[in-house]
């Protein structure tokens, strides 16, 4: 990998290099997921400066804590999103503390944070995994998701046996699910 561009390696290879401590992998991980991290922080905190701080802390924590990243339990992007959630929670906690000190703010002023149910991270995870499916199952899922075809219509469209389509659906949904249902355990670095 010394002469290959990091922009071209897949997420798994990137995770390996990251865990091994290659700084170029950190840079590439930033290129791939910092817009997601930043957006999650911005949505939750409603303040650009705070969101920038969180993004910075997330990548510093991730790098310093890279020995705690377990590739068998999580993808690199899911792990980074987990750290992001903790850093956002920390930022909210810091604000609450500041507010208590000020004792001034009674009502929420300008900032209306998004509800915690925001699912952008999950949608990005699922979209990432969808792109990694093999061509045929991927096509099956695209027809189901975007063209709203039923499994029998998909079987017709792709000239596949209905049983094969069902089996692709089950395996693909299981893979997509494993991606967003990530272990959100402690990621304190």
């Amino acid at each position, binding site marked *: 990998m010394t002469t290959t561009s990091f922009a071209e390696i897949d997420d798994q290879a990137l995770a390996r290099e990251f865990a091994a401590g290659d700084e170029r992998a950190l840079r590439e991980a930033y290129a791939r997921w910092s817009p997601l991290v930043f957006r999650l922080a911005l949505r939750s905190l409603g303040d650009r400066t705070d969101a920038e701080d969180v993004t910075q802390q997330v990548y510093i924590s991730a790098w310093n804590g890279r020995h705690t990243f377990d590739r068998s339990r999580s993808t690199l992007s899911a792990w980074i999103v987990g750290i992001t959630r903790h850093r956002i929670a920390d930022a909210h906690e810091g604000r609450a503390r500041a507010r208590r000190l000020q004792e001034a703010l009674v009502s929420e002023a300008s900032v209306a944070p998004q509800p915690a149910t925001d699912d952008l991270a999950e949608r990005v995870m699922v979209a990432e995994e969808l792109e990694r499916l093999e061509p*045929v199952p991927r096509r099956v899922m695209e027809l189901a998701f975007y063209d709203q075809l039923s499994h029998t219509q998909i079987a017709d469209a792709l000239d596949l046996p209905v049983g094969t389509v069902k089996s692709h659906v089950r395996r693909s949904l299981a893979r997509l699910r494993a991606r967003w249902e990530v272990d959100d355990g402690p990621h304190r670095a």
Partner: protein
Amino acid sequence: MDHIEPDELAVLALEGREPDDDAARAHLAECAECRAEYDTLARTAALGRAGVPEGELEAPPASVWAGIHAELGLAPELAGDPLTGGRAVATPAAPAEPRPVAELPSRRRPWWPIAVAAAVGGILVGVGVGVAIGGLGDAEPTPVPAVVLASADLAAFPGWDGATGHATVEEDADGIRSIVVDLDASVPQGDVSEVWLIRSDASGLVSLGLLDGSSGRFVLPAGIDLTEFTLVDVSAEPVDGDPAHSGDSIVRGELVES
């Protein structure tokens, strides 16, 4: 009744339907296990459907990376903002290529052919004209050389580390096109390798036949448009009588015109 069959439950969740038959519907209403599985799969499908809308993601400013770079004391050549491709010093040792922010998944973009091209890396350009050397010195007339129309380097899929391959499309003097596929991979015993042509947008695929050993030649059906079917794929297929692609690709690559 027994739990709902997994394939069936997945399809129901995907389509947001209740089972057609009464017993299964009653079971789904009562069985916490099936219900939880159904709900999780339905949520997965909803997330997949929602996709990632354009413009949903925006880049943090360059100062964020600058702060990370300074705090962690990273190598000087990594100083440029990874999101805009800015590079302080580009050294041959660390050619970290810039990536545009828009590289994050967009559900409308056909992604995987691009990824395949990226995985293949250096796509072979200009193989030139291959010359089929016939029986030299024989009384027979020298055969007209076969022309190489296109070729593809085949790159390994995850789980098939180390596998490589190559495909060459040739046209003989009679205008018959054939594809020569070489595969260097250890395929488990019992599986067979099947050679496919796949449309660039994955909307169709054609089986060319089974690869016997590490090399094979397959005549291309006359109607196949190689500007349309641009991908060569070798898959591992269980001997189960199912004619569909197993989804277990060993190598794949994009044909490039010679």
